């Protein structure tokens, strides 16, 4: 049972929920996804386009993988050809293109999970809820899921996830909350002290151009030797960051991409103090 939970879900945000087994993480996620309604209190705001990925998806449904995805795409509001296209490309992205025509009951556990993940992403949801969605995926698909999550956040979605692996998207989460007792607490200092793998990108903009606002992953930036700027960002966000830079108007030029050395005493993230005040703040009663 959970009580006195006050959670804000702003756009462009990746939120991690932690907690021991049986504390109600899944319950909270189901409430956020709108699958269940709270006994007391309410969930306010417009119902966002929502997608949910359960921990296990052993769906014994009489469809093929792509048949199921097309149905779900239509339920999410896509037209049939569009849903079929996206189903194909998301299955391919997670390495399950070969199983598009396999009936769901014959899929392995991992491939079923890929179908569940593809279902969520093909709708381009505004609110994406992942309940240990990485469970059962192979390493390549896990990394792809990390990147897909970062892309979703970069394009404005709110992503809330639970995962048993503490390193999952480490350093990429904008806020971390912990369920303790019956309530939700902000995990202390979690977003700033991210320790996951980081990528350093050196880029140069057109003369006089400033860095585009709201870059994916809110990278730290310092002047690069020889002009331009050096951006350091959590590895999960690096693809989305590169894409944003390259497609900016006018576009930025990428000079160098490398894995950042392990973090020692880096200057604090530029956003830590002056961050706009719309970050989620839990208020325990």
């Amino acid at each position: 049972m959970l009580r006195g939970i006050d959670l804000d879900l702003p756009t462009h945000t990746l939120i991690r929920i932690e907690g021991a087994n049986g504390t109600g993480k899944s319950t909270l996620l189901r409430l956020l996804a709108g699958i269940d309604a709270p006994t007391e209190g309410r969930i306010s705001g417009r119902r966002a386009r929502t997608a949910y990925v359960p921990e296990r998806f052993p769906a014994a449904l009489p469809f093929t993988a792509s048949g199921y995805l097309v149905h779900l795409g239509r339920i999410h509001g896509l037209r049939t050809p569009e849903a079929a296209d996206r189903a194909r490309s998301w299955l391919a992205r997670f390495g399950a293109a070969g199983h598009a025509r396999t009936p769901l009951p014959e899929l392995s556990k991992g491939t079923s999970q890929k179908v569940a993940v593809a279902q969520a992403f093909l709708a381009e949801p505004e609110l994406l809820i992942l309940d240990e969605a990485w469970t059962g995926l192979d390493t390549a698909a896990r990394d792809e899921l990390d990147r897909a999550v970062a892309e979703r956040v970069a394009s404005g979605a709110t992503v809330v996830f639970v995962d048993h692996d503490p390193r999952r998207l480490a350093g990429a989460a904008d806020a971390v909350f912990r369920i303790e007792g019956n309530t939700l607490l902000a995990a202390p200092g979690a977003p700033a002290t991210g320790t996951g793998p980081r990528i350093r990108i050196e880029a140069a903009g057109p003369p006089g151009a400033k860095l585009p606002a709201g870059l994916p992953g809110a990278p730290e930036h310092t002047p690069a030797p020889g002009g331009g700027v050096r951006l350091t960002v959590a590895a999960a966000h690096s693809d989305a960051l590169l894409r944003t830079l390259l497609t900016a108007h006018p576009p930025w030029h990428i000079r160098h991409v490398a894995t950042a050395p392990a973090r020692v005493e880096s200057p604090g993230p530029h956003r830590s103090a002056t961050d706009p005040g719309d970050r989620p703040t839990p208020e325990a009663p």
Partner: protein
Amino acid sequence: MTALLRYQTALLVRSQRWLAPVLLYAAFIAIGVQWGQPVLDSLGYTAAGLLPVTAWLVQLCAGQEPPAARTVTAAAAGPARAHLAALLAGLGCAGLLGAAATSIVLLISKPASADSSVRVPLLPAGIAGLLAVACCVLLGAVIGALCTRPLLHRRGWSVAATVLLALAALVTGGSPANAAVTGLVTGSRTGTVHLPVLSLVAATALAVAAAALVGKVASRRA
């Protein structure tokens, strides 16, 4: 809603779970409806048999998604809409079944009153038969929806309650299904066609109320 209905109907059709209720109904019709019987009697019989079959089909639809798939659909479309689409898919299939059975009855029955003294025109008889089918389908759907998840989860209770309520809806005077069927059967004695319009209104009102209640409960605990 169209996408949800397509999904739920495809689930029902492909799962082949519809076979049992549809075969049962076909057997019921084959036993009770013979060539050259008075048309209104046969129409009443056809409509009455559809009530428990509808309840069964609706319950099949309400429970055909495994829990994991159900949460995915509920998040995408809202749990109430997802559940109502399942109920509507069952109701729609039962309606088609009833329409098909009614056409067959109209084709093979004798267009006359029970004692063959009065001619019964087929068109009004057909309309009355379809209205009676609609009453029974709606009432069957109400019973099916109330006696399954999210209101009743235990299978034993669900089956017992469905059977009892379906029987009660057919034999209790005042129930829209009973009124519609009785109207056809008593009309057959004198060769008059009663259109069960009031019964249909009552059945529709019951169905709307049940849908509202079930939708509300479904969004509490999908």
